[in-house]
């Protein structure tokens, strides 16, 4: 994503390795286009810092801020000496005019975000926590390009906290469900991963719950 120097003079910022660009729970309305170097996206989960993603030049982050006034959902930390362009709702149009390619990229990001949000909504509309947890596995499989109809064991590296976030439940309740699923032999729990033995079984369970709900 090439920008001329006048753009950088206006909107550019430089950070040193280890600098925080913004942190989890911080209020903020800016979004960023990475020009140079790498940043990591982290979150503190059960008292340890987890890296969710690493971004490279050309990547956009913090873009949700131009839509809503929610605090940041993760922390972004510079891994190298980095250069970013920083925008907000006010100067957003300037960016679009100067860089239509970036605008197309944002359209794609938003399209994907809408799909993700709708998929999450589908999980939340399920009537009970067990089917919600099962549907989270199905969604994670879909995201990895795995068919939810597979009967082969499928490995997931998500944490309990993450699963709980997806289904909007307390981690302890999700844990109970996982224990129950494990006890009935449907999943295997490891420290760093969960193996679902038969995803198709979960697919059928979720489908039936959804059918029952739409009949109500």
């Amino acid at each position, binding site marked *: 994503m090439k920008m001329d120097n006048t753009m950088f003079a206006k909107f550019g910022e430089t950070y040193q390795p280890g*600098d925080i660009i913004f942190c989890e*729970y911080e209020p903020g309305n800016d979004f960023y286009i990475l020009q140079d170097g790498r940043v990591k996206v982290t979150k*503190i989960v059960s008292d340890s810092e987890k890296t969710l993603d690493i971004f490279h030049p050309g990547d956009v982050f913090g873009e949700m801020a131009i839509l809503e006034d929610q605090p940041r959902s993760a922390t972004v930390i510079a891994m190298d000496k980095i250069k970013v362009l920083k925008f907000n709702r006010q100067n957003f149009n300037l960016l679009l005019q100067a860089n239509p390619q970036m605008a197309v990229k944002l*359209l*794609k990001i938003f*399209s*994907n975000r809408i799909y993700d949000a709708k998929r999450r909504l589908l999980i*939340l509309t399920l009537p009970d926590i067990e089917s919600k947890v099962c549907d989270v596995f199905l969604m994670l499989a879909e995201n990895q390009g795995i068919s939810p109809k597979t009967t082969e064991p499928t490995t997931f590296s998500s944490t309990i906290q993450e699963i709980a976030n997806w289904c909007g439940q307390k981690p302890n309740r999700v844990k109970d469900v*996982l224990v129950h699923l494990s006890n009935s032999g449907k999943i295997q729990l490891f420290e760093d991963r969960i193996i679902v033995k038969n995803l198709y079984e979960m697919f059928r369970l979720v489908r039936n719950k959804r059918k029952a709900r739409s009949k109500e």
Partner: protein
Amino acid sequence: MPGILRNYKAGSVIYFMGDIGDNIYILKSGVVSLIHHSIETGEEVRETINNGEFFGVKSALAKRPREETALVIKDSHALVLTNEEFELLITKNIKIITNFLRVFSNQLRKVGKLVHNFLDHEEVGDNQAELFKIGEYYLKNHSYKQAHYVYNTYLKHYSNGTFAQQAKERLAAVKDALEGKGTGTYTNVLDEGAGPAETGGEEKADAEAVSSEPTEGEENIDVATKYYDAISLFSQERFEEAYKMFKALLSSETLNADAQEYKPKIEFEMGRCLMALQMNKEAVLTFTNMIKKYPKDENVKDALFNIGVVYKQQGNKEKAASFFNKVLRMPPESPIDKKAKKELAGLN
């Protein structure tokens, strides 16, 4: 204008919900309806496309399945663009992009609101306290640069916030540490923050709220976590380790009053471990004790069933049958009844 102009007859379908396709359409003449089911209510929703309007954009851009079926109501003409042609077209016309961004952000906001409505609002927590806690995490891990940023940010947004005083103290300590004055200062300040000597009544209460909350939680989590770990060992078929872990948990002092609810569960699981280890006599004994001690526990029926299974394996049909019958006689109905019936049938 790039793209191909195509004719569509009334009653035909341009694409179906669930189809994968990267074409984007502009309606030139006629009438097209987009049909989808509402996520909230499951009801069918129809939306009419006007001449000159785009459709199929979001799915094509995101390379995801179509969310709706595009049904032709009256004979129509539509311009069909590939993803690339569409990109070329819109980069030359910023107005289209801004329009789409507006449409998409409205949709996203709408879905976001629905998602938010479903979430337990207690979960969201107090952003102010959470932000402060992020600082505490970095401080504890000696990541002074990051802690410095977070405390600064906290004070920028919540200069009169609940933790403002503590944030200021932490910030001073972090600055010392960053300037190489050592970590001694940092510990001191942490003590001061939580101690009664230097802080006033109100602040002290706040400090306690911060420092005592996690510890209280931790004790409960401790039993829950260990129980979960043991279950996890069991699921990995490491039965002996699981058994040892359950046993240690049962006898440990960490099992305080709050964690009593775990006792019947743990004893039941120990029985299952013994069963898996083929230690039949011990398994029956453990289940029997558990049933005696907690006759109203939710796992009692399962325990009775398991005893039946052990007897069956030993070839003691009579005893096995009596336990399966006990399962069936005991209320409430549960999925285990079906299994018990099956086992009973298998005995004869």
